[in-house]
């Protein structure tokens, strides 16, 4: 069942995209579209000349020269690398703080690192516009102290900072988990063998933490390589990534180019992910930390230089982190209640209400957006939950070819929504023929399917660790007592991993609420738009209502976040 759903909802659409890319109008098969893209400096920059069979010696000097052309794909990779470096740079101090220090609210802060996963990226974009825009909070503060305003919008910096907002907490989260699982007695053994504290860190702690940092970095690269809403909102078409161009092709109905570009993007991000997975498989050292390293108090009783130095560094970090992580959200909330004259106002919310009352059919009205978001999220959760649970059960069993099932089932995590959206659009919404019948699927159904596909890997991620951690003898005992395989899942396994199931459901719900990419491709009709799509349509023209809408979205996702956290998202893989 689940596999059939996966095929229809994911692999078939992806396949459609693939086929689309190689078939020309008269039905012949060609790689011409690929070849054109590969040779076009517009996409590949100077590298394209290599694909165009120019001599490497002629190209090399241009590649290293300062005014080289990167091309779209080059630029996408470039901003992904920058974002990855910046995310690791901002994630590691947070991991250090969380793993090594004890202070009030540490648990809460650790929990907060999960927030970006449930924050819709379009909302983050709104927050960034509200913070770094021409009239944003940052310039207001700078102006108040007499400094000249800075123009960050539509710059690479803005995109990178937004990516950091999203991915640094991820790096922090996986690194903290690894750091906490370092066994204190391993460090103590090293110390007793003559290693100083720094040497012990280098020899014992670092090798165990390093793979986690790499995990964070690899995921960050893949996520930022396939970034879309943030770049669309903060970069526009001047600083477009591959995704944005795919979107533009879709809008211009150039499906073959969109598909070919999508395939190239897919190959690159899957390549990185596979390379990483191979590395991980070779380097997984599961040391279940018997006894974690003791935490130091954040506020030492005796202020010596050695005690103070790392804490001063952390204090500096907190300022930067505040600007990157807190300011956008705070600014968005602030902007939603600030009028044009700077005074407090509810005008923007009133605008939404008025628009709802008086808006014409082709205008974006808030209530359908909210209603659609909630309906789609509910339906997508209902779909994602059983899929995720079944996949989780499958991935925790041992049998031949399990690795393949693993990878195939988790692939949607690495494939950007735009490809799924495009595939669903071409494959299902435009219809397909079965024995002479033309079957088409409504746009809203396709959206639900796309959301379920985007959300179920999170169900897998929250349910599978619990299932894998279950004592096999519990299951075998139940079977020996007469319970069938299915009965065991119902009576023993699901009750024991229930918190994970609920957390997974909340994840799926939140992912669906925030999903933008696939939705914007599929929401062709006037009726199928969701809150994120509404925000995007507002953002260009009216920042105020966009922020007001963003606040509503924040509240809805915040609620599902509370559910996630209450039910143990904490100990999960993500």
């Amino acid at each position, binding site marked *: 069942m689940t596999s059939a759903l996966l095929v229809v909802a994911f692999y078939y659409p992806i396949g459609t995209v693939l086929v689309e890319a190689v078939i020309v109008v008269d039905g012949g098969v060609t790689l011409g579209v690929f070849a054109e893209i590969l040779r076009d400096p517009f996409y590949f920059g100077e590298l394209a000349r290599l694909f165009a069979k120019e001599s490497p010696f002629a190209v090399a000097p241009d590649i290293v020269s300062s005014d080289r052309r990167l091309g779209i794909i080059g630029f996408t990779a470039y901003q992904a690398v920058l974002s990855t470096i910046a995310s690791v740079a901002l994630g590691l101090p947070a991991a250090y703080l969380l793993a090594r220090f004890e202070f009030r609210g540490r648990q809460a802060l650790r929990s907060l690192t999960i927030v970006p996963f449930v924050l819709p990226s379009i909302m983050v974009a709104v927050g960034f516009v509200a913070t770094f825009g021409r009239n944003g909070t940052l310039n207001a503060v700078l102006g108040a102290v007499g400094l000249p305003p800075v123009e960050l919008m539509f710059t690479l910096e803005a995109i990178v900072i937004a990516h950091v907002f999203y991915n640094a907490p991820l790096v922090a989260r996986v690194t903290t988990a690894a750091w906490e699982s370092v066994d204190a007695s391993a460090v103590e053994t090293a110390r007793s063998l003559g290693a100083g504290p720094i040497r012990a860190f280098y020899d014992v702690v670092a090798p165990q933490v390093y793979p986690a940092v790499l995990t964070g970095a690899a995921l960050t690269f893949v996520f930022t390589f396939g970034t879309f809403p943030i770049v669309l909102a903060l970069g526009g078409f001047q600083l477009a990534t591959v995704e944005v161009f795919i979107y533009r092709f879709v809008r211009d109905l150039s499906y073959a180019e969109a598909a070919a570009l999508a395939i190239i993007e897919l190959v690159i991000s899957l390549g990185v992910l596979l390379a990483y997975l191979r590395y991980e498989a070779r380097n997984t050292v599961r040391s279940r930390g018997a006894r974690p390293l003791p935490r130091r108090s954040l506020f030492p009783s005796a202020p010596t230089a050695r005690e103070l130095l790392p804490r001063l560094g952390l204090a500096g970090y907190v300022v930067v982190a505040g600007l990157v992580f807190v300011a956008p959200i705070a600014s968005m909330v602030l902007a939603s209640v600030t009028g044009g004259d700077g005074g407090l106002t509810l005008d923007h919310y009133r605008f939404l209400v008025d628009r709802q009352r008086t808006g014409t059919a082709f205008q974006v009205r808030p209530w359908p957006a909210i209603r659609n978001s909630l309906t789609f999220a509910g339906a997508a959760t209902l779909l994602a939950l059983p899929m995720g649970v079944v996949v989780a059960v499958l991935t925790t069993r041992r049998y031949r070819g399990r690795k393949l099932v693993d990878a195939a089932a988790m692939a949607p995590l690495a494939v950007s929504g735009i490809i799924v959206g495009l595939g669903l659009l071409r494959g299902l919404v435009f219809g397909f023929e079965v024995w002479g019948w033309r079957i088409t699927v409504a746009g809203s159904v396709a959206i639900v399917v796309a959301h379920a596909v985007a959300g179920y890997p999170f169900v897998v991620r929250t349910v599978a660790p619990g299932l894998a951690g279950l*004592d096999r*003898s519990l299951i075998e005992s139940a*079977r*020996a*007592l*007469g319970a*069938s395989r299915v009965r065991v899942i119902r009576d023993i396994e699901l*009750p024991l991993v229930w918190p994970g199931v609920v957390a997974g459901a909340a994840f799926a719900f939140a992912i669906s609420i925030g999903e933008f990419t696939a939705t914007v491709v599929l929401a062709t009709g006037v009726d199928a738009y969701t809150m994120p799509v509404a925000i995007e349509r507002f953002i260009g023209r009216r920042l105020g209502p966009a922020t007001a809408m963003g606040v509503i979205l924040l509240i809805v996702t915040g609620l599902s976040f509370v559910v996630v956290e209450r039910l143990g998202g904490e100990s999960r893989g993500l």
Partner: protein
Amino acid sequence: MKAVGSEGDRGPARGPDGDPPAVELDGVTKRYGETAAVDSVSLRIREGEFFTLVGPSGCGKTTTLRLIAGFETPTAGAVRFVGEDVSGVPPERRDVGVVFQNYALFPHMTVGENIGYGLKFADSPDRQSRDERVAELLELVDLPDAADRDPESLSGGQQQRVAMARALAPSPDLLLLDEPMSALDAQLRERLRVQVRAIQSELGITTVYITHDQEEALAISDRMAVMRAGAPEQTAAPRDVYRRPASQFVAKFIGDNNVFVGRVTKVTEVSADAADDTSVAAVDVGSETLRVALGGAGDALDVAVGDRLTFCVRPEYLRIDGGESRIRATVANAEFLGETTRVTLDWDGRDLVVRTRDPLSGGVVAGFDPEDAHVVRVDTS
């Protein structure tokens, strides 16, 4: 080479009434990739018997149990319950009760719900008879008031008894116990051992017990199979396994033992009419010539001069300043164990173990009588 077996090695194919055995493994092999965890094992377990599989870790005993339970399917061979092939029958339809090393009590259920779980799948699962059966079993395992308790609030020994009760509740035909006591401390283990055996005798249920503890195996079993590298080396009653180990491995694994290897220099045949006497071989081991009994008239081992003989002598039969064959050795190490002292002697670089009451030191003479030596292997020249 001629293997020297004991009579228990070849258990009867059928019980006294000609019934097929309760459990029969017929050439069962279980492979994981290239390695065979269980290698063409044939065993027959009789109705009502307490049968133990004992061996070092990795010998395949747990896999054997899992094959009987149905958690694993054999790569080759057949598992039969009372003559019927059950190789394709899933565990829930085999009517077996299983107790695991960690008890595997369902943490989200009370003790009573745990015990009652298997009754849900019985033919007439009405609530009242279920509750009665649960109370009955709690009585049996001596935990009458525990029904509403949380399994995690019980001690290890209590959890073990609940696991027993849960396995027995649906009245299975077969009880399988996978090292059910190895997580408990030594004193509790001995107490529970007696209790488990008493319950088994009371119910008369065929039981397969897994342990790596040879002492436990000797104490609890009707018959036992000593396993090594995926196959049993000897299957017999505990007394026979101890007295007449079938191989050097069994001799060393079950209890303490001194193993000697030497060449036969002379065989003294006993005359046919001397019923209580035995043939004796003189064997050169190191610097000494030791005399080893080969058995009485009629069933004496076929040994010729020049054969290589492997035999063993239990420490308790190796006496200081006693016995017919004498060995000069020096004390290398002594462990005081309470009732006895286990003394390791050095005999020209070989280790010998004796048990004594008196403290020993320096040079000693240890000896044994020919009847106290047991031949485990004969290699003809």
